[in-house]
C-alpha cells in the first residue's frame, strides 16, 4: 500500500487545459550512499511514472536517482472527455503504485 496525494479538478470544461499534481511517498534511495555498516544501500527508486486518460497515455516520465524522496509531479492535460485518469508509478524492488482519479468533462 502506498501513500499518495493527488490534486486534480473533479470537473473541467471541454477543451480546457487542466493541471494534475501528484505526490507519492517513496525513499528514492540513490544506490550511491553507504549505510551505517559501510556497505552501499542498494538502489531503490521509482523508475517510471505514467498517466493515462481512459487508457490513452497523456504523460510519462522517467525518474533518476537524482530525484528527491517523496517525488512531486505536476503536468498539464487537455480535458477532452469525461473519464478516469490512472496515475501509475513503477520502480525498483517490484514497486507498483496506482491511483485513479475521475474527472467529469462538461
Amino acid at each position, binding site marked *: *500500500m502506498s*501513500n*499518495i*496525494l493527488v490534486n486534480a479538478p473533479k470537473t473541467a470544461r471541454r477543451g480546457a487545459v487542466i493541471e494534475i499534481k501528484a*505526490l*507519492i*511517498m517513496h525513499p528514492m534511495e540513490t544506490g550511491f550512499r553507504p549505510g551505517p555498516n559501510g556497505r552501499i544501500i542498494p538502489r531503490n527508486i521509482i523508475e517510471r511514472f505514467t498517466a493515462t486518460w481512459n487508457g490513452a497515455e497523456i504523460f510519462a516520465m522517467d525518474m533518476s536517482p537524482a530525484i*528527491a524522496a*517523496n517525488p*512531486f509531479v505536476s503536468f498539464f492535460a487537455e480535458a477532452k472527455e469525461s473519464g478516469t485518469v490512472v496515475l501509475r508509478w513503477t520502480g525498483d524492488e517490484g514497486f507498483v503504485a496506482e491511483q485513479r482519479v475521475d474527472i467529469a468533462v462538461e
Partner: protein
Amino acid sequence: MTGRLLAIGLALVFAASYAAAQVGADKRRSGYQDMGEALQKMQDDDTANPGMLFVQLGGQLWNRAVGAADKSCADCHGAAAVSMKGVAARYPAIPGGSDRPVDLEGRINLCRTEQQKADRLPPENRDLLALTVYVAHQSRDLQIAPPYDPRLDAFRQEGAEIYRRRQGQLNLSCAICHDDNAGKKLAGIVIPEAHPTGYPIYRLEWQALGSLKRRLRNCLVGIRAEAWPLDAPEYVALELYLMQRARGLKLETPAVRP
C-alpha cells in the same frame, strides 16, 4: 474643570495607546514567516506538502490493531479529529502515574507498551513519526497552550537553563543565536526564533519527516557540542521551555522547512 477633563482625556489616550502597544507587542515570528514564498505555498497546500503523506499514513496506523492486546489507537480514543484535538498544543505533559514529563512520541510509546502490549518504536522511526504527526495535525491552527501544572515548573526551569547554557566547541547557547541574533543571517540563511510550531516537520534537507529532537540534535552538532543520548530527559525539558516560550503561537503541523 477643564484641567480635570483634560487629565481624564489624556489618561484615556494613554490607556488606549498602551493597550494598542500591548496588542502589537507580540513580535514573535514562526519559522514559516522567514521562509520563501514557494515553501510557504508548499506547506499551505495539503496536496503538495509532503508532511501530509505521513499524516495519511498516521491515519492508517491509527486504525490498525497491533500488539498482544490486538488494539488500535481508535479502539480507545475513537476519532482522532475529536479526541486528539488540542493535545499537541499542550504537550509535553506528565502522564498519569508518573512524575516525569513525556513528549508526544513518548506518550504514544507509553500507549503502545501499556495498552497495546506492543514494543516501543525507536526514535525517528517512520511509523512513530507518522502517528505523532497525525495526532499533532489535529491541533493545526490552534494556539500553543502549555498547561498550568506546578509539577512541570522544575522541568521548564531546567529547559530554560539549558537554553541559556553555553556549550560545545563553539561555546554558544541556544539563546545567543535564537534570542540575541534571530532574524540576522548565518551562512546566508535567516536565523529563526526557534518556536516549535510545526513539529514533526518535513525538512527538505532531510527529505523526510523529523522530530523536534532531531532538530535539536542538529543544532547541538552545529555548535559542536556532544548530543545527548536519544532518550535523555534534556530534550523534553528543552521542549517544555520552548513551548512555554511559544505560548499563543499557532501550530502548523506538518510544517515544511528548508
